[in-house]
């Protein structure tokens, strides 16, 4: 039997691509070497959100109980339970993906796949048996793994990658985080909330360097206030690793030596390439694809983390759908242009579209509309007055070029602006939409008004 599509990898690109192909009436198999759900579900987005929820609750109870009028003694936590809750959430969702495979009559094959020839895939099962399958089309969705720094091999104890960090037991007393992207910042927030002494080191001038500078600067101040030591414009010079811990030399304005129980390396990801067919790669080693997500090998497509940044689950799923619809329908696939990015520390950070500096670099004419949560009724009522909404609104037509939110539930608020950009809504459509009161979303409404001097509450 020959498949219409074999997907290699069962993460957010792979399983979503497989399901869409099945929905189109195709005979589909998905080969996965570990567990369906990929990094996102097993070792990324989902389990970390579980950990961060614990951190957020504990932070409120421990640091802000008196604000809310709570009184208790001996507040404590069970570290093992915190980690096991996170794992059980991942387990539950992974089962959900396997159910979706069954429901869509997708053959779920366990093993490590390699592409051995045009339309030919061999996968090695756990029992070391080699099975050959054939398919008209192949979609590579093997994803990526944490990138290591030269000479610093993660050992799960003193040198950690994100995978290690989310099951680290016992809790470290002192942690050094290298890299202040979303992953570095989220772990820094998590460990700090539970009392670990955290130092966050970033080579670029700001934390969350891809975000709008104003957002990054605000977040950096907030993290510092929460007790995290933040070094920006600072590079790692040397790291000595012993059984007891790590000694790290960093160099920013001056050289310093940091001591820690362990260090987390969060400096990006490296592609996880399938074996077999020699695929053309880009300069950074990711698989090169064309506008239809086709690789250099005929009949072989790729989507998700393995084709390069942005390394985001929701982008991976979208790409896989584009690729699959391009294979089997008359749909003309599109490459990713606008996508939301979210960081789940507190205050949360979320954005979509252009930053102010990108809009300037592109020479666009625009206005900035800003509205602080400190002037939003709901934010005050729930005790979250930190942060603001910032919109980059183009002139003269008023379309939304970019949206940047820092504050409570920022990651939930960004959806409205993603839709606005996709549908090319202009500031007038958002302005003309009644936003419920009292909600945090009113800040979005007011920010559109602010761009044109029409904000009511500020």
């Amino acid at each position, binding site marked *: 039997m020959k498949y219409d599509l074999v997907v290699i990898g069962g993460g957010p690109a792979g399983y979503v691509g497989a399901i869409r192909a099945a929905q189109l009436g195709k005979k589909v198999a998905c080969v996965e070497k570990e567990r369906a759900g990929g990094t996102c579900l097993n070792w990324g987005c989902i389990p970390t959100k579980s950990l961060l929820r614990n951190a957020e609750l504990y932070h409120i109870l421990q640091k802000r109980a008196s604000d809310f009028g709570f009184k208790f003694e001996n507040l404590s936590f069970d570290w093992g339970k915190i980690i096991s809750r996170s794992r059980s959430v991942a387990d539950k969702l992974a089962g959900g993906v396997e159910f979706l495979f069954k429901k869509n009559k997708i053959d779920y094959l366990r093993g490590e796949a390699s592409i051995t020839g045009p339309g030919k895939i061999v996968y090695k099962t756990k029992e070391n048996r080699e099975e050959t399958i054939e398919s008209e089309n192949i979609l590579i969705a093997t994803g990526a793994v944490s990138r290591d720094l030269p000479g610093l091999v993660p050992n799960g104890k003193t040198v950690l990658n994100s995978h290690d960090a989310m099951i680290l037991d016992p809790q470290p007393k002192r942690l050094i985080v290298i890299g202040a992207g979303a992953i570095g910042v989220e772990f820094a927030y998590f460990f700090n909330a539970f009392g670990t002494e955290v130092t966050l080191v970033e080579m670029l001038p700001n934390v969350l360097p891809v975000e709008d500078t104003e957002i990054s600067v605000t977040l950096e101040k907030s993290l510092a206030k929460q007790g995290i030591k933040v070094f920006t414009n600072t590079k790692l010079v040397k790291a000595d690793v012993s059984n007891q811990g790590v000694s790290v030399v960093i160099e920013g304005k001056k050289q310093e030596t940091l001591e820690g129980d362990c260090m987390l390396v969060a400096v990006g990801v490296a592609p996880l390439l399938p074996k077999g067919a020699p695929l053309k790669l880009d300069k950074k080693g990711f698989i090169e694809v064309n506008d239809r997500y086709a690789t250099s090998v005929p009949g072989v497509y790729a989507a998700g983390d393995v084709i390069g940044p942005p390394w985001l689950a929701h982008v991976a799923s979208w790409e896989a759908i584009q690729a699959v*619809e391009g294979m*089997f*329908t*008359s*749909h003309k696939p599109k490459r990713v242009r606008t996508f939301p990015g979210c960081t789940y520390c507190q205050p949360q950070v979320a954005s979509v579209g252009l930053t102010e500096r990108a809009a300037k670099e592109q020479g666009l004419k625009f206005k900035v509309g800003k509205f602080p949560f400190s002037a939003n009724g709901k934010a005050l009522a729930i005790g979250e007055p930190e942060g603001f909404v910032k919109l980059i609104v183009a002139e003269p*037509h008023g379309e939304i070029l970019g949206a940047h939110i820092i504050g409570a539930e920022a990651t939930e608020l960004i959806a409205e602006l993603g839709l606005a950009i996709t*549908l090319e809504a202009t500031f007038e459509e958002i302005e003309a939409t009644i936003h419920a009161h009292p909600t945090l979303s009113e800040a979005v409404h007011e920010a559109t008004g602010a761009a044109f001097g029409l904000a009511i509450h500020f």
Partner: protein
Amino acid sequence: MPIAIEMPKLSDTMTEGTLVRWIKKVGDNVAVGDVLAEVETDKATMEMEAFDEGILTEIYVQDGNKVEVGQKLAILLGKGEKIDSGASQPVQENKASPEKKGEQPVAAASKEPIASQAPGTAKGEKNSEPTPVSPASSGRVKASPLAKKVAAELGVDLGTLQGSGPGGRIVQEDVVASGKSTTSAPPPPPKPEAVRQPAAPKALSVMPALEDKKLPLSGMRKTIAARLLESKTTIPHFYLQAEIDAEPLTHLRQSINAAAETAGLGKLTVNDFILKATAVAAARVPLANAAFGGDSIIQFANVQLACAVAVEEGLVTPVIREAQNKSISQISAAIKDLAARARSKKLKPEEYQGGTITVSNLGAYGVEQFYAIINPPQAVIVSVGTIVKKPVINATGQIVPGQRIILGVSCDHRVVDGAVGAQFLGELKKFLENPTLLLL
């Protein structure tokens, strides 16, 4: 509940239609499926069927009038019902209760949306997403707020655009692209010697003098104008020509027709041979039986052979389906039937849509040679001249009387290169000069 009958949209390019005549009269009982009226579109005259039953109570548009798609034509009432004042307003739309809107698929329009897309598309292709149909300028145009603003500024008619956004929505990019290709992007600072003519002005203004007649465009004329302008201005045409020896063809046809006459069978025309030869050549050179698809070339699995037929108002190109599988006598019968019904405007849309290659034959008018404009989205059109008697040099080098036909082929260079066009023309020549092969 009064049911409004509206001008149906009977083809994807139709924006208005002429109510040729009412078959039912006021007071007639109407059953589902009854023919209410005849409607003339840009392509053909069609019967408009009832989708609801009732009594035809009022007629708002009289025979011979032209109205926009969606305009109310008449009202059907159930027994004992009266028209409420809102529903009886002829042009003002949708005054009736909102829930009625869903349940009034009235006319033939809603029966089946007619896709203009070429059929028999590439192998195994399944169209899961509705093809974005360019919205008629009278209907709702799906366009983003930004696109609307930019269109207003550039003076672009959104109704003429195809959207590339979600669900066929027109987005800014579509408007800007069309603004560039058609008109009014702000003109560059005037540099008299270097000013470029703006591309393709819609029409030169002609002032008719007193005795001159002004003929309003029929739907068909408008379609011809729009499609052929688009073809000639956007498709890079190139042309090939070959003279073929028509002597064997003439002789074969004479002997077949003599035999057919005694047997009481139909005669074959020269055009039947040309059509058959085109079908064979297109099947043998599949690169010529193709269309330009923007980011790909669609190579058709079947030869859907279109043949230009002159009709009163212009021309139509009815299609002989899967012509590569049909014998010459089947082709002959098919085109006879299609042409007759084209002249009486009785073709259904599916009978003139979806051709993959076209033959245009002006031989009957004595034209010796010409080059037809490509019929988009096809890539090749064959132009056939008349049989000319002239001196020719035969195989032994003597000048003898001969019979010749000049064939022209117009090709879309985006799809067909010179060598492929030549190969196609070569096949055509080979089979027409050895016409017995066409009987196999």
